[in-house]
């Protein structure tokens, strides 16, 4: 994690992959504009860029999902090292050439075992039986060599995200991949899981495997890669070896301008807005359950809830939005115990939410931007005239929101589904913040957003905090949590840790707690090992 590993250069690095002047257009949009990229054996190359920079398009061309309009993909032969052009638009050809891809959204059939997923498609399909002894031996060999350990007899749906990723990597290696492409591999991992993934990748690179990592987080790219290529707006705007790279210049290359970094100013918190006392919600499923949770959110304070997704955040968010009721325990809003759990009632009390899945829960794609802005307030007098919706008023508010929040869209009457993720989030921020809420429940507010949109979200949340709103920030992005939060609690398997003040937070400790280790246990461990008490 500390410094970049050097490429394994005992022999002179051999060129494995050459992308030559790849151009791909989607209508008027040029997704890839004459991009060149070389990858050598044993090298880890990071492909950096914001959303829409063309990283995924480029990789889809490499893998044969798209056909490039111009340019060629050339791969060195397994035996002779001679570059040969890869047949465009044929995933099978890419597989045969030794290119393996691990998509951000795993391509695993969840009803099958890990072994079945790996073997799928590698054996002749019309056979009366499946023979797994050879496959098993090969996989055992691969696992022991790389540290990619996972129980392959389990159905995939029983595996953790990190384990699923290992199955994906094994899938590629089982097909004798010589080049492994990983699309945003750490997006769903805890910091510890990410570190262990990087260790595995370095080990694999040392054996001659070439790796391309598509990423947008700088820190991890600097930690694992040998070389960095940066894309912006479909063009390659920079390329450097990692030891020559520095964070700031890369960020500027990616965004194309200076990125404002939000700073949290000291502020004494005000009165309590919402408090949870010994809340238990048992839905039989860890994702939707909470166990004896107590929390307190105060005015002018950002309370960060750190955790790997699927550890009860959804239950917590539902509860605070009034969409679910606790089995036991009490919720108090402004010191008054809540008796009726009703989303509308909660909203009336000034609780606003930025939902986790902005496309699914945050807006209605087929309705217009203006309708989406007004949707939470259709009962309000402001938007009614004689009991009918007053579309003039709604449109006027939408125009303001579009201007104030810099929502890039064709206009208030455009269907919301045409907006990009970042603009949808701005739209939601506009809807939520314009009402000067008392409490903002922000669930993964910047997930999947590019650097620019992310900094906008952060600025707005801090602004709301300055203005005296309480913010509950649920996130799995440690950088985000550490930048914004006054206090942080960790959620794991439905249990919430005691709150830690921002000043006392240690990054790696937070990571361990997200993985399920209790703060005290960890302290005890370090003390026993002679570490700082």
């Amino acid at each position, binding site marked *: 994690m500390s410094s970049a590993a050097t490429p394994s250069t005992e022999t002179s690095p051999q060129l494995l992959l050459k992308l030559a002047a790849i151009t791909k257009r989607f209508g008027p949009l040029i997704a890839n504009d004459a991009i060149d990229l070389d990858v050598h054996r044993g090298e880890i190359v990071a492909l950096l860029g914001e959303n829409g920079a063309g990283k995924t398009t480029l990789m*889809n061309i490499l893998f044969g*999902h*798209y056909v490039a309009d111009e340019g060629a993909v050339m791969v060195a032969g397994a035996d002779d090292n001679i570059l040969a052009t890869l047949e465009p638009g044929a*995933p*099978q050809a890419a*597989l045969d050439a030794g290119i393996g*891809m691990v*998509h951000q*959204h*795993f*391509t*695993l*059939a*969840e*009803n*099958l075992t890990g072994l*079945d*997923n790996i*073997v*799928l*498609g*590698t*054996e*002749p*399909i*019309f*056979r*009366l*039986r*499946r023979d797994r002894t050879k496959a098993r031996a090969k996989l055992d060999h691969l696992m022991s060599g790389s540290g990619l350990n996972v129980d392959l007899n389990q159905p995939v749906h029983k595996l953790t995200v990190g384990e699923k990723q290992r199955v994906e990597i094994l*899938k590629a290696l089982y097909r004798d991949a010589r080049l492994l492409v990983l699309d945003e591999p750490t997006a769903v991992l805890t910091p510890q899981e990410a570190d262990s993934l990087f260790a595995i990748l370095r080990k694999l690179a040392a054996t001659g495997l070439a790796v391309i990592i598509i990423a947008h987080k700088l820190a991890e790219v600097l930690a694992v890669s040998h070389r960095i290529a940066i894309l912006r707006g479909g063009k390659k705007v920079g390329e450097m070896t990692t030891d020559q790279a520095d964070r700031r210049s890369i960020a500027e290359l990616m965004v194309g301008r200076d990125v404002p970094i939000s700073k949290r100013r000291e502020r004494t918190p005000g009165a309590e807005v919402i408090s949870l006392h010994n809340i238990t919600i048992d839905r039989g499923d860890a994702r939707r359950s909470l166990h004896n949770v107590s929390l307190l959110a105060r005015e002018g304070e950002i309370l960060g809830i750190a955790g790997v997704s699927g550890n009860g955040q959804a239950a917590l968010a539902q509860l605070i939005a009034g969409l679910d009721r606790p089995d036991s325990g009490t919720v108090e809003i402004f010191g008054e115990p809540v008796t009726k759990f009703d989303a509308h009632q909660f909203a009336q009390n000034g609780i606003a939410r930025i939902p986790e899945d902005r496309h699914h829960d945050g807006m209605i794609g087929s309705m217009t931007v203006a309708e989406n802005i007004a949707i939470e307030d259709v009962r309000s007098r402001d938007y009614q005239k004689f009991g009918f919706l007053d579309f003039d008023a709604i449109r006027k508010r939408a125009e303001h929101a579009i201007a104030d929040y810099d929502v890039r869209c064709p206009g208030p009457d455009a269907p919301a589904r045409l907006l990009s993720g970042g603009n949808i989030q701005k739209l939601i921020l506009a809807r939520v913040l314009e009402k000067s809420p008392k409490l903002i429940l922000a669930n993964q507010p910047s997930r999947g957003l590019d650097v620019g949109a992310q900094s906008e979200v952060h600025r707005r949340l801090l602004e709301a905090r300055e203005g005296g709103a309480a913010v509950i920030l649920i996130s799995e992005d440690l950088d985000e949590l550490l930048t914004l939060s006054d206090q942080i609690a960790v959620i794991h398997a439905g249990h919430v840790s005691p709150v830690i003040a921002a000043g006392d937070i240690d990054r790696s400790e937070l990571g361990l707690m997200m993985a399920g280790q209790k703060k005290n246990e960890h302290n005890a461990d370090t003390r026993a090992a002679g570490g700082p008490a």
Partner: protein
Amino acid sequence: MEIIDILLTANFWAAALRIATPLIFGVLGALICERAGVLNLGIEGIFTAGAMAGWMAVWLGAGLWGGVLVAALAGGFFGLIHAILTVPLGLSQHVSGIGVTLLATSLSYFTYRTALPDVTSPPRIIPFQPLDIPILSDLPFIGPALFSQTALTMLALVMVFVTGWVLYRTPLGLAIRAVGDNPSAVEAQGLSVYALRIGAVVAGSALMAVGGAFLTMSAFDAFFFGMINGRGWVCIALTVFASWRPGKALLGALLFGAFDAFQVRLQTEVGAFLPSQVFLMMPYLLSIAALIIVARKADYPKALLVPWFKGQR
């Protein structure tokens, strides 16, 4: 007391298995389609087409097994229509399926009427005869109940085993189960999603049609209008009941067959008290009840009903 005695007669279980036979074919066919991610509501029409085509082939002199083959081909044909509409074209599986049912039913009736314009009573063929297997057919109870059925019933039971083997023991079955859960996974492994889905729908539809042919070539000896009478829809429900597993499909079909056989016998026992429609309703009511219990927890193939397009992710 007599009511319980019914359940202990070989005659009752023979009837249950006979009633279950077309359903076994139907559920197996439906579950193969759905395991690959395609709901096939064409089943009701495909049953009709199989019943008509099989019977007509025999009537024209093709021989009984020739008739079964023709029925399967007819089913495969309508399956192919449904598959093309729903897989590469990605149209609504519900709409396409109902369309295929209407088309196949009407086309069967039309063909029958055109071929036999002046017939008042349906012409008869010599159907499959009950088997007489040495020793086995003479066993007490199980002999008459199981080993004196027709060859098509035996084929249905064999198909339960074959379907299970293919789905769970062969690479092809692995690919079919994968394509119904995550087609992108199949594509990423270099297999064709379209070929797998189309193949599964065609094969499943062929099986359904053989179920239809059982009605005209084994259970009865003639084709008449309305004879499918919702059996296809029952199969769709039984597929959920069976959790898409061939073994449970057999169980579900037998359960339904037993209910149906039971209500017929019950009518003669206590028919005086209740209108006969109540008894006719019974197997369906019990199916709904069973479905409520089982289907709430059902683990649907994840990609069922979800169209998948090449190059789109």
